[in-house]
């Protein structure tokens, strides 16, 4: 390996891995967003709020269980479920009446809901920074790439990404539910005409998508400070990823998240001050040459 490091510095590898663990979070959130966009055609800005609620719930669960590592694993189960429950209420109470509305209206409406959720989070948790402890198992660093320390928790994230991707693939391609959802994405009237309860399918897809947002929120919680405003920062990135990958395409979300995560982490290496502009440059470049995204869109 030393020969390799003499050509490419070890720091680059390390930074690639940092980018990949960021990719995991972005992919999990964006895949939920793209699922909802593809099947229900709702550009859900409130998706970011659900991610934030997931992170804050994780904070509460770990705090209630005494701040130990069991708390995190419990949060990993409970928080996404709590988010899913909230989304189920929102879907049955509001979104199910809106599937035929114009996109601009839906965008504004979900933005309004994100504002409401944002303030409700402020009401419940206050506006201080919160932190969630890294679970005991994954505390500390491992020497990777010529001895550079790499956080163990990020390795856990790296493993979690593919697991979620495979589960999603199985869900959409190997279950009857997934096949119906994919059919409904292409032609919802026809699916309804053959006697399938489309409304219920939509509700399930919506809840699964939001579950993923909550999951992303819990997973990201130990690596960042949990704070208000994390919703608006993330949702824009998730939207750009989804657009870049092709609306409604889960593999597109994966590809988009990879591009976004890697340009972000490597950009910081190339030009520390303006690292944050590289992902946006990548999105612009992609959209200039492939206006409807890299992979096939379901729209």
């Amino acid at each position: 390996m030393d020969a390799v490091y003499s050509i490419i510095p070890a720091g680059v590898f390390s930074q690639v891995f940092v980018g990949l663990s960021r990719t995991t979070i972005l992919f999990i959130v964006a895949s939920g967003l793209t699922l909802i966009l593809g099947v229900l055609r709702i550009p859900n800005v409130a998706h970011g709020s659900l991610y934030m609620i997931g992170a804050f719930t994780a904070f509460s669960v770990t705090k209630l269980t005494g701040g130990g590592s069991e708390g995190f694993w419990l949060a990993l189960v409970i928080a996404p479920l709590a988010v899913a429950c909230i989304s189920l209420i929102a879907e049955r109470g509001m979104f199910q009446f809106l599937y035929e509305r114009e996109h601009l209206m839906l965008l504004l409406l979900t933005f309004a809901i994100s504002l409401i959720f944002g303030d409700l989070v402020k009401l419940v948790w206050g506006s201080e920074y919160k932190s969630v402890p890294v679970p005991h198992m994954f505390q500390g660093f491992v020497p990777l790439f010529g001895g550079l320390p790499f956080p163990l928790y990020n390795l856990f994230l790296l493993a979690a990404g593919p697991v979620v991707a495979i589960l999603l693939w199985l869900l959409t391609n190997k279950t009857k539910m997934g096949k119906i959802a994919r059919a409904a994405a292409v032609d919802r009237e026809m699916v309804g005409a053959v006697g399938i309860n489309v409304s219920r399918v939509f509700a399930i897809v919506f809840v699964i998508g939001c579950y993923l947002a909550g999951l992303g929120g819990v997973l990201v919680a130990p690596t960042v400070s949990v704070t208000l405003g994390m919703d608006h920062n993330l949702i824009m990135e998730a939207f750009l990823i989804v657009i870049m990958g092709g609306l409604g395409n889960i593999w597109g979300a994966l590809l988009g998240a990879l591009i976004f995560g890697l340009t972000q982490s490597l950009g910081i290496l190339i030009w520390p001050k303006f690292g944050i502009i590289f992902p946006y440059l990548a999105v612009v470049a992609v959209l200039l040459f492939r206006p409807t995204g890299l992979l096939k869109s379901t729209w």
Partner: protein
Amino acid sequence: MSRKTISGMGAGIIILLLFPVFLPRFYVYLASVILLYGLLATSLNLVLGYGGIFQFHHAVFYGVGAYGTTLMLTKSGLPAIFAFITGPLVSAAFGLVLGIICIRLSRLYFGMLQISLGSLVWAIVYRWYAFTGGDDGIHGIPMPEMISSPKSAFYFTFIITIISLYIMWKIIRSPFGSVLQGIRDNPVRSGMIGINVRRHQLLALVLAGFFAGVAGSLFVVVDNSVFPDMLFWTLSMEIVIMCLLGGWFTFLGPMLGAAVIVGLRTFVSMYTVYWALVLGIIMVLVIFFLPSGILGYAVEKFERGFRKPEGGEQ
């Protein structure tokens, strides 16, 4: 315009002109902010309501105009008048460049590409400490003597806003404005009868950018500061809400929407920190129960069967 509306407008203008005479300083400031936000929302409505273009990131042009004016005022030794011309022109140039890049795409994709480009501009402004002041922004911008007091800033804002509104009104009423509305209602047919659809849309984007830049420069006059949040996408959404709330198929709707939202924000913020919650609830109610906006609703209500509302049906 009928005689009645002209006299009504005249009365309104006179009342507004008397504002600083009998109102305390804070309300003068508030009135200026309402005027410039109204101008900003009206400039967005030029492309969104009349042009049917999904301009999702209008705040970029507002922010760029404000930064352009500020940087000219603070970094160049030129007289202030050049700064106030440069700001809007830089915005118009951004409108042109972003327009050329985005115009090939339609509707939602147009909006998303614009948001990504706008976020790029935001990120640069946010990080370029040496030039733009980074995330702190620039505060205490020196103003020329003539417009440095709140009262004179109000009069300046007022005059510029009225002139800009008049020009936009003329633009919408011109053949170009009619073509723009025709493109909104049926782009394919407009193309078929020989209209260069993209060129017209592009011109509309440049004009909207210019007037957003004017609003940005006015903000510098009123507040003497700029900050990167002026370019963040959540502000763009708020501007769209102003248009929606007032009614985006009416000319003065966005101004009304801006007045309602800026006014409410000021007074709600005095009592609670949960302004976003209130705004969110207002938005949901408007979208569900008043989709054509306050003024749009009034026009429908009072002029039904008499004259079709401005811009035709939705």
